């Protein structure tokens, strides 16, 4: 799935897991993806992640293109979004800008959401997986390409299996975009997978008593 330019040919809308190893590969893939949109005035950019991540992406993009992008930021063509430990708020932090982009008439939104796993300012892993699955339904109503980078150098394997592979219809790895046979449709993911995540089976009884995330599990149990 490659365009004539050599860049991956992303369907629109699409939700894509980017599997990368470390910062260098992340920058190459993500900044190239965002720069394509920057060169097209009909497209908007949406950088999302833990506090400070969106700003860092913007600075990196400015370095790459060699100019100040604050005019685009002020005009609302570039938006920086922030994760939230409360997954409902996090979802709202994604939906509201997408609606604003649509109201402004942008033909395409390039969304990059840097994935955190068991991070203090991020939803607990099982809530985040719900969010990832739910995103498939959300973005189906918007002209958006959602790119979710998963860092192989930092993430546990379970984040890749249950997150990157099971909640994304497409996977981008080594510059190649592929349809993902491991993807599980949101309805099935919610009813069959999310309630049976293996690490919840061990923690479930204690968590039901303690309360916690959307799945009833205390934050941090998914490590």
């Amino acid at each position, binding site marked *: 799935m490659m365009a004539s330019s050599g860049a991956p040919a992303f369907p629109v809308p699409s939700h894509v897991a980017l599997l990368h190893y470390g910062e260098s590969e992340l920058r190459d893939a993500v900044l190239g993806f965002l720069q394509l949109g920057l060169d097209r005035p009909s497209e908007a950019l949406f950088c999302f992640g833990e506090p400070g991540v969106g700003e860092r992406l913007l600075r990196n993009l400015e370095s790459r293109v060699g100019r100040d992008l604050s005019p685009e930021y002020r005009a609302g063509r570039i938006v920086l979004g922030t994760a939230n430990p409360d997954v409902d708020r996090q979802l709202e932090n994604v939906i509201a800008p997408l609606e604003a982009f649509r109201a402004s008439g942008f033909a395409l939104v390039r969304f990059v959401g840097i994935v955190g796993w068991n991070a203090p300012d991020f939803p607990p892993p099982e809530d985040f997986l719900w969010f990832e699955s739910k995103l498939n339904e959300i973005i189906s109503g918007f002209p958006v390409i959602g790119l979710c980078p998963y860092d192989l150098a930092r993430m546990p394997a379970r984040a890749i299996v249950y997150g990157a592979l099971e909640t994304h219809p497409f*996977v981008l790895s080594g510059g190649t975009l592929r349809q993902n046979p491991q993807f599980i449709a949101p309805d099935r993911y919610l009813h069959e997978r999310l309630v049976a995540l293996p690490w919840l089976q061990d923690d479930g009884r204690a968590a039901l008593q303690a309360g916690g995330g959307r799945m009833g599990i205390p934050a941090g149990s998914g490590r």
Partner: protein
Amino acid sequence: MSQARFARSEQQLTAPEHFALVHHGEEELREKLFDFLRPALDDPKQAIYLCGPPGWASRLLGHLETSVGRDLRSEVAERRIILGHGDPDVDQQLQNLLDPVRELCGRGFSPVRVAGPAAWDVPGYAAPEDFLWYESRVLPGIEGLPVTIMCTYDAARLPASALLYGAFETHSHTLIDGVFSESPSFLSADTYLKTRLIHLPWLEPDRGRAVSSTSEDRPARGRRSRNR
């Protein structure tokens, strides 16, 4: 052409096959091991080879004995079940797999079922980059043989890179949560050697240094990387 069916699920594989079971923890391993190996216990024309880091083959046999509820020493004694082991020298490790598997095929067993866990950065075992080379050479090694190999990858214990570069890129198929599917990331042995193995990110000095320290942030120790 040899078919290998599973005990509980509807899966049926055509040998030769080399697939990755991605599981979460010991309980699921035991369950899937039983599902895969039980038909061989019920059919005297089939054989089993168990392998892994030192001690693992006996452990897998113990899981199997628990699941079937009987002692399998007689099958081991008659070498219908062979217990093997890995080796820090990956060429030797490949030989440790292929010699007994060919022996079993030569004695007329079909299919021969193989199971062994993926180990990553384990003392006394092949280094990760060497282990990946081994994984990529398994399928060419069993070409034309009635052999089905299940490599088990524990998502609860392994790092993410083991999963991508090992389970998904060196196996033509994966079995995850009971679903057997083609791995779109699979690379043939030659392609793997030329495009992946010599470019493993942790072997490249300038890659990933900005990332905070992790257990994988370590120098290569494998023979393959030293010989590059």
